[in-house]
């Protein structure tokens, strides 16, 4: 990879990865990551997130298709020559070397820098990461957060065009995780380095990234900014995977402008009906609605009757588990509200908040919502 190639965009072209046991881990993956973007890859365990990252890093062979950094294919390029740096889940710090050696090793082996230059770069990076006092410690003597910083520092010091991070925060406890999250985010904004960040924590994905890649079973589900993924999931999988507690789903059929399920009927506006009726069948639909979009104890038309089953007190909010003729439905209510179990209640929700999926799981309202939520994309730096 010649140094003149400074554009650090990453292009995946029909990438395929088959492990030696004929297991297809990534299939037909296409995506283009712009220079400077912070991209998060989410998906359930085993969906191929690490595989994707490791192919970019050169730790796994690419079975089919191609990956390009800038305009040049990475095939045949040695890992250390790809201009990438990686942060591992368990940091992969060399336990027997000091922080200083951990950070300088790669430089010493792959660059022609003098000892002084290396030392200076290590020191600058350590200062940036706030670990200058730990330079002579061994990793085992550092706290989790400090280890994380060293791992990140080791990546930064090599001045890569692309950062690859595989669940870099998952070994930290909850509080530290939040802290390091913002730290990493700031850092990336300062450095402007293209970053691919793997996580299975949807929280991290929503918080940190310019755009999110949602993977499932090796296939790309959606590649969009966080709000879009949250508000306009491309399909049922994304809708279910993103959001906590998860979206409620109900099997429904469309009769005229009414969605009919086993336990309730719900009127929808004709604008939505128009969109839907372009599909083959209207009898095998799924209605999705997020717990926070449901109004508890509503009155008026178009409400649904439900019975309180369990009340989960969670401090700031309570979650009410409702039973709608056999289907379960979760509703988020404010912390003060604590109904008695067995109580009957009316709920309602705004048709603008509903999601509708066909039998194949596609979001039938995706186009509609897109226009209905014009503020997407917001402040992502796609154009950088």
């Amino acid at each position, binding site marked *: 990879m010649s*140094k003149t190639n400074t554009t650090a965009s990453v292009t995946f072209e029909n990438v395929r990865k088959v492990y030696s046991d004929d297991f297809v881990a990534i299939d037909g993956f296409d995506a283009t990551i712009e220079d400077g973007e912070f991209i998060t890859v989410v998906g359930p365990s085993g969906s191929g997130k690490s595989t994707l990252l490791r192919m970019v890093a050169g730790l796994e*062979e690419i079975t089919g298709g191609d990956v390009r950094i800038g305009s040049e*294919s990475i*095939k*045949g*390029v040695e890992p250390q*020559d790809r201009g990438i740096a990686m942060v591992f889940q368990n940091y992969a710090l060399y336990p027997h070397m000091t922080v200083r050696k951990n950070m300088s090793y790669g430089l010493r082996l792959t660059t022609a820098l003098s000892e002084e230059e290396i030392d200076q770069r290590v020191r600058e990076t350590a200062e940036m990461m706030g670990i200058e006092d730990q330079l002579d410690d061994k990793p085992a003597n550092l706290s989790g957060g400090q280890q994380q910083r060293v791992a990140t520092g080791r990546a930064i010091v090599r001045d890569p065009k692309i950062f690859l991070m595989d669940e870099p925060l998952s070994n930290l406890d909850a509080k530290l995780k939040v802290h390091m999250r913002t730290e990493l985010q700031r850092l990336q904004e300062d450095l402007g380095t293209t970053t691919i960040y793997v996580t299975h924590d949807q929280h991290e994905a929503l918080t940190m990234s310019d755009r999110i890649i949602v993977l499932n079973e090796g296939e790309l589900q959606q590649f969009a900014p966080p709000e879009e993924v949250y508000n306009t999931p491309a399909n049922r999988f994304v809708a279910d995977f993103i959001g906590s507690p998860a979206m409620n789903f109900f099997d429904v059929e469309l009769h005229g402008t009414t969605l009919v399920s086993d336990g309730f009927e719900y009127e929808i506006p004709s604008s939505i009906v128009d969109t839907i009726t372009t599909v083959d069948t209207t009898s095998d639909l799924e209605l999705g609605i997020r717990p926070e979009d449901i109004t508890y104890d509503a009155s008026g038309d178009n409400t649904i009757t439900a019975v309180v089953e369990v009340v989960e007190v969670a401090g700031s909010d309570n979650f009410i588990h409702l039973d709608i003729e056999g289907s379960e439905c979760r509703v988020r209510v404010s912390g003060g509200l604590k109904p008695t179990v067995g109580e009957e209640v009316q709920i309602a929700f705004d048709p603008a908040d509903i999601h509708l999926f066909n039998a194949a799981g596609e979001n039938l309202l995706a186009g509609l919502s897109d226009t209905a939520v014009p503020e997407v994309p917001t402040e992502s730096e796609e154009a950088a």
Partner: protein
Amino acid sequence: MAQSTQQTDADGSGLDRSKSMTREWIAGATFSLPYILIAGTFLFGPLVLALYMSLHDWNALAPAQSQFIGFENYQILLSDPDFWNALWNTFYFVFLTVPPIIIGSLLLALGVNRDVKGKWLLRTIFFSPYVLTVAVVGLLWTELFNASGLIPYHLGGGNWLTSPELAMPGIAVATIWWQLAFNFIILLAARQNVPDRLYEAAKLDGASTGQMMRHITIPQMRNPLVFVVIVTFVNSFQVFGQPFIMTDGGPTFSTTTIVLYLYETAFTGREFGYAAAVGYVLFMILIAISATNYYFLAGDDQ
């Protein structure tokens, strides 16, 4: 950097793949080479040579004059009363040593695992014979069993090692003292690996100490126990140094074990081909014993 030439073969995915695979193969082969060479020369080569010898009337001083005799050595062996005597002695030795070593080491391991004071001291004492060479063990116990030695003085029986009844038990006692250590350490570690919570659960379930032993400890330690049983069997079957030093097979060949017999036919009798046949028979017995043990002790798992 300097990869411009490799950039060009964008379509050469197969090429790229095989190149890096080949590199890993070469690295793998290079790292294994020393071991493979050495093992081939000093372990497997000789094994084949031994088999070849066992099919010959081997003339060691002039190998070229050795005669191929097929399985005759094996046939002779089967009708050789000395072989059967040695085999019988070996089984007797196994019988005398294996149960005490296993039960003894298990009891000591369980005992030391308890919350006793001086755990470290006890472990050190029980483990220490492990570092002794068989020469020292043999000579030491020979002195102890001697007619004027400590053991006959307190327990009677004259010189144990010259009595046909007591010679083998004497060797067995020395062996037990010496070999307990290894099993003891393994079983102690195994016992310490059994999670305490299982005992807590059993306690709440109302299990007595004996029941915990039977229902938790033993089943939980099964794999190490199987290992220890097999290793003890294999070692006892190959006993050599102790009778060699302590009794030289006597009195009247009552402590001549199979390996001692092999050694004597090879180096005293100079019947190398025959000795190789004895070796191979021993090898088969060891495999059979290990397989049987494994089958009976570990067989019903999964």
